[in-house]
């Protein structure tokens, strides 16, 4: 094996220096001459018809640019998958905080006053707020049945398993909404010009999603819409779809006022109006043999999509495919649906449906263990998927994975057996009850099924006369390390120092569409294309006689210069080509759902205070197999960050709903983990030698979101001896449950 120069090394983050000096430019750091500030007038009711809009005469409205649905030149929708979500409400509102009017003014301080001076009269309609209310269909708020999408996965013959089962284990599990809570709020600046069209700069994940949305909204050709990503202060899926809405609003105001317009959300607007993780409910019914083998089962997975379809169908798809976890199901039937409620649409958030269905699966495994009388370790050991077996979609596991080995290593790293014995001994006498919990899981990398084929991503690389190369991708950096890892791959292929590879700012007028930066696809899928495109540069120079291997960086520079002098420019492009023999049946949801899966075992140790019912995570071991680790420091950072978000999902982050509106839309009352809440997060990688993406990398970004919640709740159950089947699990929930088991005088 050739020793690699750059791959596997923790080279400095490309934009790191600018980030530690404060020089990095985020959208709110940008100002344009003559710029106005924009604001959004939003619905105060969950559902209704707009009867009348009045403007208080104490305000001089001639100073403001005012935009309503009537000002939209094209189709009034945010084009994404379906076209059901309006850009601005036109007569009807379907959720609180739905945008109705837009205002712009040179003085941002006047906007709040102006919004308060607009009164909207509604004829309110009955609204629905929960999965159950949506299912009852007492109000039809979307389509004919409130259902955005359903899926069915069927493998084997489930109906035959119940008769031969020694145990039938049932459970119902639920997860709450979760706010992405990137620390940089959403923001956009738009400029409109009659000749050149619209330019938008902003905080965003997917430049070409916005590009597509604005083309439809303004009826403009593709060369008249330009989207540029600024440095982006966190995203986590939260800047996947909603930025199209904000860009649309800023652009409409810019068109109306003929001035640059900046819209920056404040924290409350960002939390209450934009997307969150889909709340979910999962029901399991599982047939198990007396030795703990799963014979088959039924899973019913339902998510609350909010008022419009947006991304719910794809979130549902991923959640459905992950619902069976990393286990061998000889027979299974999974039915899933996404339903409508009168809340702001739920959207993408790291994990994308999988944290929801995997929480249920991993809680349910502990339930099965209880019923069968096996340990949580043993029940998993007996049911792990093995090479040669098939997933719930009948995708053959071809990789040489060994989940038992992964499990054994995680148990050893966490000192599981000793801790368990120790806690079992000490808990009785102690006010602090300690417990340990396990989660085993998988996460598919890249778009589901035929997704990558439809995306057909393109990557470009150009060689420059100074001997550097520049990557041309629309893949965005928002903390994960896109810039760094893609440059590492190109540097490795081209035998160049890492410093000689740069990456262009994502700008749709300059870079091809390498697809959205989502779905843990960038290192694996885009990385592969970078590898191909870089190889194209190298081969072009060699074939033309300008370069001979081995070469120095100086010789590469001379070759670039010669080539460019002869041909004008040196560019290489690569387009996604589906790997041969990969089959996916979209109709029956069968086949190779993902090109690769990452696998993991997480172990959480918790302490539950039996006086305050507060839970502290005291230790956390995160062991995973993600293929080749391209950059150990970034990879560890991804895992630790995901685990921290998972701790929040499990124990702290509760969205309080009131008639479809988030009532605690502040960092003071929606609580994410601080440095004082975080245990040692011990991150380990196992490389089992599979080759998938560039240099053997698989997806990594979303994986760590899946495991913490079930591992932590399993640990709380272990500590308290009480079953909890939902997150977030707050102290008051533990109190309520534990006090049920107390006798009237408070004694057990």
């Amino acid at each position, binding site marked *: 094996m050739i020793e690699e120069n750059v791959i596997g090394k*923790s080279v*400095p*983050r490309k*934009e*790191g*220096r*600018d*980030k*530690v*000096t*404060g*020089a*990095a*430019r*985020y959208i*709110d*750091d940008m100002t344009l001459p003559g710029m106005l500030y924009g604001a959004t007038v939003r619905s105060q009711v969950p559902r209704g018809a707009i009867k009348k809009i009045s403007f208080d005469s104490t305000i001089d409205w001639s100073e403001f640019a005012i935009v309503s649905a009537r000002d939209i030149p094209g189709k009034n929708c945010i084009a994404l998958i379906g076209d059901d979500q309006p850009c601005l409400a036109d007569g009807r509102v379907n959720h609180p905080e739905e945008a109705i009017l837009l205002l712009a003014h040179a003085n941002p301080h006047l906007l709040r006053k102006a919004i308060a001076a607009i009164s909207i009269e509604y004829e309110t309609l009955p609204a629905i707020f929960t999965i159950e209310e949506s299912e009852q269909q007492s109000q039809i708020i979307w389509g004919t049945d409130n259902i955005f999408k359903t899926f069915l996965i069927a493998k084997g013959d489930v109906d035959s398993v119940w008769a031969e089962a020694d145990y039938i284990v049932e459970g119902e599990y639920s997860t709450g909404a979760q706010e*992405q*809570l*990137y*620390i*940089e*709020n959403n923001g956009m600046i738009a400029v409109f010009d009659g000749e050149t069209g619209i330019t938008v700069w902003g905080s965003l994940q997917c430049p070409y999603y916005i590009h597509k949305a604005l083309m439809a909204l303004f009826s403009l050709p593709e060369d008249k819409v330009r989207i540029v990503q600024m*440095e*982006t*202060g*966190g*995203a*986590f899926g939260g800047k996947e779809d909603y930025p199209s809405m904000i860009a649309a609003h800023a652009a409409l105001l810019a068109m109306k006022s003929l001035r640059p317009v900046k819209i920056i959300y*404040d*924290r409350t607007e960002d939390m209450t109006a934009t997307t969150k993780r889909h709340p979910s409910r999962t029901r399991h019914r599982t047939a198990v043999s007396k030795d703990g083998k799963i014979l088959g089962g039924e899973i019913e997975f339902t998510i609350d999509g909010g008022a419009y379809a947006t991304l719910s169908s794809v979130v549902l798809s991923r959640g459905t495919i992950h619902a069976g976890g990393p286990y061998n199901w000889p027979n299974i039937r999974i039915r899933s649906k996404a339903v409508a409620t009168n809340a702001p649409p739920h959207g993408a958030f790291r994990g994308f449906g999988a944290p929801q269905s995997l929480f249920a699966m991993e809680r349910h495994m502990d339930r099965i263990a209880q019923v069968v009388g096996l340990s949580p370790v043993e029940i998993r050991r007996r049911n792990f998927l093995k090479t040669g077996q098939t997933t719930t979609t009948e995708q053959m596991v071809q990789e040489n994975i060994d989940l038992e080995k992964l499990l054994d290593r995680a148990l050893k790293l966490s000192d599981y057996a000793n801790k368990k014995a120790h806690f079992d001994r000490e808990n009785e006498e102690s006010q602090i009850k300690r417990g340990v919990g396990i989660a085993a899981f998988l996460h598919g990398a890249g778009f589901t099924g035929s997704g990558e084929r439809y995306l057909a991503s393109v990557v470009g690389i150009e060689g420059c006369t100074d001997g550097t190369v520049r990557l041309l991708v629309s893949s965005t950096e*928002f*903390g*994960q*390390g896109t810039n760094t890892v893609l440059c590492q791959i190109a540097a490795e292929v081209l035998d160049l120092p890492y410093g000689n590879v740069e990456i262009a700012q994502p700008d749709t007028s300059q870079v091809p569409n390498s697809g959205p930066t989502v779905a843990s696809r960038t290192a694996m899928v885009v990385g592969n294309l970078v590898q191909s495109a870089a190889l194209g540069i190298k081969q072009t120079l060699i074939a033309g006689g300008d370069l001979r291997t081995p070469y120095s960086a100086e010789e590469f520079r001379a070759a670039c210069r010669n080539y460019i002098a002869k041909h004008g420019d040196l560019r290489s492009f690569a387009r996604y080509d589906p790997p041969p023999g990969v089959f996916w049946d979209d109709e029956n949801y069968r086949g190779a759902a993902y090109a690769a899966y990452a696998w993991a075992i997480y172990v959480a140790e918790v302490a539950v205070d039996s006086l305050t019912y507060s839970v502290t995570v005291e230790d956390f071991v995160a062991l995973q197999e993600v293929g080749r680790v391209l950059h150990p*420091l*970034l990879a*560890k*950072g991804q895992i*630790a*960050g*995901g*685990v*921290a*978000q998972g701790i929040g999902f499990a124990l702290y982050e509760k969205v309080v709903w009131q008639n479809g509106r988030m009532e605690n839309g*502040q*960092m*003071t009352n929606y609580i*994410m983990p*601080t*440095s*004082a809440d*975080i245990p*040692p*997060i011990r*991150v380990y990688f196992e490389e089992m030698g599979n080759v998938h993406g560039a240099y053997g990398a698989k997806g990594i970004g979303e994986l760590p979101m899946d495991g913490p919640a079930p591992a932590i709740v399993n640990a709380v159950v272990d500590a308290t001896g009480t079953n909890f089947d939902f997150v977030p699990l707050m102290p008051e929930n533990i109190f309520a449950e534990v006090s049920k088991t107390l006798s009237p005088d408070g004694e057990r």
Partner: protein
Amino acid sequence: MKTNSSEHRGQCNLSFTVNGRTVEVRVFPMERLLDVLRHTLGLTGTKEGCGEGECGSCAILMNGELVNSCLIPALQAADANLTTIEGLAVGPQLSALQQAFLECGGAQCGICTPGMILASQQLLSKHSSPGMEDIREALAGNLCRCTGYIQIFEAVAQAARVKADV
């Protein structure tokens, strides 16, 4: 520094030192110091995350103490000595903390980084070799959504070691 009356809505002069440079600016007395830094002085390295003193993205040092500049009325900074993220590097030479954040993975998306580095700076000015508990506590007012804090803790510990070696 006085305004004519509590009703007075006009701007007034304000002078303070920021990153070693004395500046004089016209401000509304109740204007947030954060906005004076970012808009009036163009020091955009100081970030706004929540606007209510919870996240610490706007943290700066004021007379050596860590403050959330979104909660400080501009007038309170009269004659104060301020340090923002722009004041840490000396030319191209990063401070020990900046270098450690870069090397240890302490900055991911970077939006909390300026405030986080200043909170760390204040810790190290009081504690030359802080333990893990000191670090966890000192940074508890600065929220980071990307890193899970672990690599930030490592960066602070490394910077303390580097400073001790000097």
